[in-house]
């Protein structure tokens, strides 16, 4: 199929399959799947600026489907979700401006690829290590595996910070937390979102769990709401800069819509610790694909 806006020709079935795969991940982990879609699109030969821009609209559609499913399970902390909107949007805009600067300097491809490899590899090692440790903890101390988290040092410390105003998050079971921690954490994830052209879920979800101490299932549902907001804003800002091929996004979304339904339903039957463990296994896949493309130039159709 020809995609004249991005100037590439890619079999539609490949894009539908990419969408289906990341759709399952989106529904299951509450991430938009951009950390996988981006590397896969780069691998299929989509130009880097269109990878960044096109990833976002396809994510919006897919996340709506998964979010509706999670909302019906009661997995959304609305107070937290609303608080996260503004810092996320500001972070995205700054990230998108960085993309424009790098595009003008001609170094976007290299910087983007290296950023993907470093971030995905680091995240993968950490999440996989933590979830294994949490699994061991649940078995040894006979704790309910549903929401056991092994790495709680940061979230415990964060809760001791008394920077006013302090708020409570009832749905997440948090009695008191500084609003500034939420703003700082979500601004940082927004910045990465705007720069990589991802929904930011693969960063935001671990931040919610390990830094803010949100239960995994609530983090998944709340994160999906944030992805809808951040990816919609990211879509508009990148689209006005001519970085979005909507046809690619629409084709990918047809597969993603089915995948998101499957993934979201599966969370009802899998523990939070197990969700994170499998998440850690999938992260390096993107890093490997980007490294392969950087070394060989990817595939041609």
């Amino acid at each position, binding site marked *: *199929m*020809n*995609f*004249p*806006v991005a100037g590439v020709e890619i079999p*539609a079935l490949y894009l*539908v399959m990419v969408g289906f795969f990341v759709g399952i991940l989106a529904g299951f982990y509450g991430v938009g799947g951009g950390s996988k879609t981006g590397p896969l699109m780069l691998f299929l030969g989509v130009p880097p600026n269109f990878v960044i821009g096109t990833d976002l*609209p*396809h994510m*919006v*559609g*897919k996340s*709506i*489907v998964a979010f*509706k499913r999670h909302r019906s399970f009661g997995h959304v902390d609305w107070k937290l979700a609303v608080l996260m909107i503004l810092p996320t949007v500001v972070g995205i805009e700054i990230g998108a401006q960085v993309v424009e600067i790098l595009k003008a300097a001609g170094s976007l491809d290299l910087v983007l690829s290296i950023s993907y490899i470093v971030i995905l590899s680091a995240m993968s090692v950490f999440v996989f290590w933590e979830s294994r440790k949490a699994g061991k903890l649940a078995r040894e101390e006979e704790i309910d595996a549903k929401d056991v988290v092994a790495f709680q040092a940061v979230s415990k410390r964060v809760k001791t910070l008394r920077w006013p105003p302090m708020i409570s998050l009832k749905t997440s079971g948090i009695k008191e937390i500084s609003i500034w921690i939420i703003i700082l954490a979500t601004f940082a994830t927004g910045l990465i979102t705007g720069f990589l052209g991802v929904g930011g879920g693969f960063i935001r979800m671990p931040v919610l769990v390990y830094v803010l101490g949100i239960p995994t299932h609530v983090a998944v549902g709340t994160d999906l709401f944030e992805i809808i907001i951040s990816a*919609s804003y990211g*879509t*508009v800002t990148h*689209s*006005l800069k*001519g970085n*979005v091929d*909507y*046809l690619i*996004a*629409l*084709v990918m*979304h*047809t*597969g993603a*819509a*089915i995948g998101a*339904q*499957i993934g979201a*339903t*599966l969370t009802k*039957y*899998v523990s939070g610790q197990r969700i994170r463990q499998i998440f850690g296994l999938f992260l390096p896949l993107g890093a490997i694909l980007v490294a392969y493309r950087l070394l060989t130039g990817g595939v041609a159709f």
Partner: protein
Amino acid sequence: MLIPRGELRDFALEVLIYFSLVVIYFFAVLAVLEGPLFSLFQSDLILYSVLGLSVLLAQAVALEWVTSQIIRRVKGR
């Protein structure tokens, strides 16, 4: 990971309906969008942005809504 049989059947049915709708939609709509979207991209970037995102949102909500309605009817029998 144990999924109750009834839920698994309903879910498989839902996915099947979803898949059928997506195939029809792909050939009826997406296959003919190539030319118009490219013309819009070249002539009016703002309209292209607004229209593109609107189509995508409509696609997401409509597919989900139609499937839910069909499922409700099937379950109601």
